[in-house]
């Protein structure tokens, strides 16, 4: 895929956010990923040109950060937290269950291109463990069965809404654009807080009564 004139304009606007151009490298990589699904050589060369850097310098940055993919992922990229807390609470069982259910290893993609799978590190939602992320949206308090149902629904084209996120699950490319700082106008969708987030507040209101 070639980058369009519109892409050039967006990328220029991203660069303008910063006092120094090189700071734009990360949002530009997120943006390139939103256009092509992963970081291609074309993407790297374009960013290098935009920032007046060598392609090797951009490549060095992109390979440092795990969210920049160097090969195609699924339309829905599923991450199962297997850091200690989530692993103990069921993340290990969920990850094993999904690998078996999808016939995939870590970093694998289903043949239909719908779902890719990786184990991820702590995603700052430990009070909702075990946690599964899809396109970096929260699916809280999962079980082996709920996770299998989730990926089945993705392959059928109708994934349920995230637990704390927008009303429908955006695609990988759509969410990559959000991470580049391009608004999709969906900030007002979804709940403001899940039950665990309100634990202390509710107790204190009960005490006050």
């Amino acid at each position: 895929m070639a980058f369009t004139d519109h892409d050039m304009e967006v990328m220029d606007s991203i660069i303008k956010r910063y006092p120094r151009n090189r700071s734009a490298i990360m949002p530009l990589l997120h943006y390139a990923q939103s256009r092509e699904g992963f970081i291609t050589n074309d993407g790297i060369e374009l960013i290098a040109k935009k920032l007046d850097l060598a392609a090797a310098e951009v490549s060095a940055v992109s390979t440092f950060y795990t969210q920049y993919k160097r090969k195609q992922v699924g339309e829905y990229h599923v991450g199962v937290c297997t850091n200690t807390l989530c692993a103990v609470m069921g993340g290990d069982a969920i990850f094993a269950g999904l690998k078996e259910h999808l016939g995939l290893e870590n970093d694998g993609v289903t043949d239909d291109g719908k779902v890719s799978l990786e184990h991820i590190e702590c995603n700052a939602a430990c009070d909702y463990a075990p946690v599964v992320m899809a396109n970096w949206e929260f699916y809280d308090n999962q079980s082996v069965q709920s996770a299998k149902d989730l990926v089945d629904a993705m392959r059928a084209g109708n994934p349920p809404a995230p637990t704390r996120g927008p009303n429908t699950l955006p695609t990988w490319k759509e969410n990559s654009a959000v991470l580049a700082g391009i608004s999709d106008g969906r900030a007002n969708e979804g709940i403001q807080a899940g039950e665990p987030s309100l634990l202390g507040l509710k107790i204190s209101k009960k005490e006050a009564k």
Partner: protein
Amino acid sequence: MMTTLTPVLSAYWDEKDSFTMAGYRRHDGYKAAEKALKMEPDAVIQLVKDSGLRGRGGAGFPTGMKWGFIPQGDNKDHYLVVNADESEPGTCKDMPLLLANPHVLIEGMIIASYAIRAKYAFVYVRGEVTHVVRRLQQAIEDAYEVGYLGKNIFKSGVELELVLHVGAGAYICGEETALLDSLEGFRGQPRLRPPFPAIAGLYARPTVVNNVESISSVPSIIKNGAEWFSSMGTEKSKGMGLFSLSGHVTNPGQIEAPLGITLRELLELAGGVRAGHELKFWTPGGSSTPIFTVAQLDTPLDFESVSAAGSMLGTRALQIFDETTCVVRAVLRWSEFYKHESCGKCTPCREGTYWLVQILRDLENGKGSDADLDKLLDLCDNILGRAFCALGDGATSPITSSIKYFRDEYIAHLTHGGCPFDPLASTLFASAKAGA
């Protein structure tokens, strides 16, 4: 006596539009910024110093003092950078805060930038939380729209540009100098200090790096005064903080309380350890803080007391594990995390975490030997204090502390020929079944 809870940052999270400009303004949102902008910048710094607020990102450095380190009248650009790269295992307070109330951070950033005379401020948020990014982005746009950000904010003549910068999955970028390198567009690797960021930070200019919760606490201090804030907490650990309970607890979640509350009190509020089980070990402030056992249930959770008991308050990330959890498995998984997240810059951390994982894996899989425990401790001894940044030190904490409290369990892995625990017994589904 039971500690009284103090929801300040979380006070309105139960309102459906708490994250919107209208929801925030309903409770005097942005009034503190308006007030601060009428004060002298140095008076704002003094007020924050007087409040006793200490950094909520783990280290507990006095926030006002950090601001005071920024040289004034130096004719250089100054920067404020907020660390929202919340990635320490167990830590889960800043993300729900930003999801429910991003405006309180923006208001705190306006006040802090004014105090340190910064015209540019950045929020570095981790990249794996798309909806948090949406909420923050929208809140920033809305603040620009009404003139709280940009040129001549609050019609005060003050200028502030606020940029949201989204990370891409690197724990090390939570380390402040690695974060700055990342924000400058490089691989996120830590820098040698000194010079400290206050002298040479972002673009080698004076820079304050603060945690989300620290900056979000500032509007309430401006609004209610330093005395109000310092009336909460303990002698040297003032104010309130979010305590995050996770794991084998009946009702996991966030409890905002004065510093100095104990785990015993918090567990009671959260309905105790899950039914039919008992506390085995816990982390007071994330995986990089040495673990505790039942012996520390009554340790006040403030910086001094936790430190005196042999750990660190860290981010108040209370991960609770009951007797079904294998401590070797838990520690192995954390070690795998540190190995994966080691940036590779320094040898003790890069090589050391690799070998720690090899040994722990062998132990867990029944291939360990009698010499392994000493080897683990020896490796830790060669990493702690010799690594370039705190990541390496953190990697040793779970190992040395778990061997201290659970040496017998490590040895049981040798005599049993592997892990004697059933991993399914510790899952959430196991407790759901037992409760059904």
